[in-house]
C-alpha cells in the first residue's frame, strides 16, 4: 500500500474548532455532491477542478500539506456563487474565506 496518505483526524478537529470561532463551520454539513464545483465561475476556467468541494474533503480528512499547498484557497474570489447553489447550506464560500485566514495564520506567517 505504497502511496496511501494517512488521514489525520486531529487536523480536522483543529480546523473545525478554528472555523467555528469564525462562525464558518457549516462546511461539515457537506455530503460531497459537487454542485459548488459546477457553480464556481472560475474553477473550469482555471482548470483547477474540483474546487471548494476538494478543499472541504481535505479538511475533513485532515490532509494538512495538501491544504497548505492548494492554490485554490488563494485563487478563490469569494463571489459566494457556490454557497448560493449548495443544497446543504454548507456555505463553501465562507469556508474558503475562513480557511484562507487559517492557512495564513498557521502556515504562511510562520514560514
Amino acid at each position, binding site marked *: 500500500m505504497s502511496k*496511501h496518505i*494517512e488521514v489525520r*483526524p486531529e487536523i480536522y*478537529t483543529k480546523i473545525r474548532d478554528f472555523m467555528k470561532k469564525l462562525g464558518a463551520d457549516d462546511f*461539515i*454539513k457537506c455530503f460531497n455532491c459537487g454542485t459548488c464545483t459546477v457553480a464556481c465561475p472560475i474553477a473550469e476556467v482555471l482548470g483547477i477542478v474540483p474546487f471548494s468541494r476538494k478543499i472541504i474533503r481535505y479538511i475533513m480528512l485532515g490532509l494538512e500539506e495538501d491544504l497548505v499547498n492548494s492554490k485554490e484557497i488563494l485563487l478563490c474570489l469569494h463571489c459566494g456563487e457556490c454557497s448560493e447553489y449548495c443544497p446543504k447550506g454548507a456555505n463553501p464560500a465562507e469556508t474558503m474565506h475562513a480557511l484562507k485566514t487559517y492557512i495564513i495564520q498557521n502556515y504562511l506567517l510562520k514560514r
Partner: protein
Amino acid sequence: MRDKDVRIGVYICHCGTNIAGIVDVEEVARYASSIPGVVVARHYTFMCSETGQNMIKDDIKNLKLNGVVVAACSPALHEVTFKNAVKEAGLNPYLFEMVNIREHCSWTHTDRRLATEKAKDLVRMAIAKVKELEPLEEVKAEVVNSVLVVGSGVAGLSAALTLARAGLTVYIIDKRPVLGGFVTRLVNIAPIGIRGREFVKPMIDELVEMPNVKVLTNAEVISVEGGVGNFKVRIRQRPTYISDLCTLCGYCEKACPIEVPNEYEGKLTMRKAIYLPFKEAYPPKYVIDENACTKCGKCIDACPVKAIDLSVKERYIDLNVGAIIIAVGHEPYEPDKGEFGYGLTRRVITSLQLERLLDEEGPTGGRFIIDGKVPKTIVFISCVGSLIGNKTTNACSRRCCSTITYDTLKILSKNPDSHIYILYRDIRTYGFEEELYWKALENGVVFVKFEEPPKVEVMGDKIMVYVREATINKNIVIPADLVVLFVGMTPSNAGEIVRIFKLSRTADGFIREAHLKLRPAETPTEGIFLAGAAAGPKGVMESVIHGAAAASKALALLLNKKYILREPLVAKVDEELCSGCLICVGMCPFNAISVKYVGERRVATVNPLLCMGCGTCAAACPSGAMEHNGFKDKQILAQVRAFAGVVV
C-alpha cells in the same frame, strides 16, 4: 368431445403495448375466430380492466358461451380475476383457460411474425383444452379458526397480537428458548430509541395473558400436511430442562462449571451452559444450552426449588390450524475469519457486537470501550455481506445505513471527541431518515464513498484501513482504533423452511411472496402467509406493518368463517374402470388415497380435502381410472395434438 354444442369466447389482451407491441393481436383474434367451436374472438387494450371483464361477462350472457379462453399475461397474475368474472356471468369458472402470451411470448421474443405464430399456436392449444374441460364445483372444507405463527420476532409478535385481539386462537412458536427474535439484541430501535427487548416486552406480556394464545419455545415445525383451512402441523419441542418453578435466583448459574461465548452479547463475553438470555426474557426462567451442557448435574443440586430435570426428553406436538404465518426473520451475516480483519483482533467487530457495547446492560456497562480503552478513531464499513465481502446476497439490506448513522450519534453522545469515518457504497437513508444522515454530518462524522471495497490490515493495536477516496483522486489510509463491519441480513435457514412448507425462494435467497405488489404478504401456497425479514431485509417498524398485513389476510380467510371453498382441481377415481391394483395409493405423499369396496370389488378412492392436486397418481394409474380434474388425459392430449397443428 362435445363439438356440436361448443360455444367458446376467445379474448386477446393488448396489455397496453406489452403484448400488442410485438404480437399482432388482430391476426391472433382473426385466427381464433376461424377455429370450429369459437363463436366470438375479441381483442382489447386491458382485458383485466373492468371494461375488459364486462366484455367477457356480456358475451357469456348474450352468446350463451360455455367456454372462455383469455390470452394475456401469466395466470399467476390474473387467473383468479378472470375466473371470478366468468363465475359472475353465471358460467362455471373451470370452463376457462388462460394463455400466457406476454411473459412467455411478447416479452421474450422480438420477431413479430414468429411471436404472432407462437401466440396463435398457444391460443389453438388452449381452445382445444377448453373443449375438453368439464364444469367443477369447489370443495367445501371445514375451517379451523386458529393460526400458527412461526417465529416470534417483531413480525411474528405483531401478527399474533392482531389475530389474538380479533379473537382467533393463535399458536406462536420460536426455535430459540425465548421469544422476541433478533430485535432483542438491539440497543436502540429507531425512532423511539428504546432497547429491542423493551419494545417487544409489552407485546409479549399482552400475548401471553390472552387465553386464546399458546406459546411454544425451543420449538420447530418438522412437517406440514393438509391444506388451507385445515393444516396438520407436527412440531418438535426440544427439551426445556427447567420448569416454571424457576425463581431466577441464579444459583444454578454460579454452580455451572461450563463457560461458552455468549452469542447474545455478540460473543464479546462468556456465559455459563445454564443462563438467562437477557433481562425480562419470556418465558421467565433460566435456559440450558444443550450443546454446551455436559449434564454434570451440579446445577440440579444448586437449585433451591428443584426446578431442573435433565432427563426431560424432546416432545412432539400436533396442531390443527387454519392458516400459517411464516415470520422466521433473518440471520445477521457472520463474516469469515480474516474478512476485513474480522476475528484477527478484538478491534474489528460486527454491528451486532457494537449494539451490545452501546447497551448499558451490555458487557461494558454502556461505557464505549475496547480492551479498556476508549477508541479514538472508529471506522464503519457498510454493506458487508450485502454487496461486498466473501459471501453476498447481492441485495441491499435496507436498514444498515439508518442504523449506522443512528449508532454514530449514540457513540458521540458517549465519547464526544471520537473521530468517526463511514466508508459506504451508497448512503440509503430513504424517506424521513435522511435527517439521521444530516445529523451525523453535523456531528463531524466523515463519509467516504468507495467503489473498490476497502482493505483492512491489522498492525499491532492499530487497524489500518486502506481505501481509495476517488472524489479527490487520492488513496488514503485511516489508522483506526476500532473497525465496525456493518453486516447485512441473510435468509435464516430458508432452505429448511422452504423444504418443510413447500415454498420457494427469490434470487437473493429470501422466501418468495406470491407477488411483490399484488400479494406481498402471501406465499403462492393458499393459507400460508409471509411476514417480516423472512421475505427480505426489513426494518423493525416495517416488520410490524408486514406482520399486521399478514394477519389481515389470515383474518379475511378465517374470521367468523365456518368453511372455505377449495379449488376442485383434485384427483378423482372412475370406479367403473378401477381394477383395485392400488398402484396409486403408493404415489400419494399426502395419504389422500384409500381403499373402499363397491359390492365386493376393491377400488381406490380420493379424499378431496387431503388431495393437493399434483396429479402424480393420475400419471401412474395403469388403467387410466384415476383422473386429475382440470388436467385430465384427454385435456392435456388435446393440447399436445393442437400443439402439432391438429385443429380439432
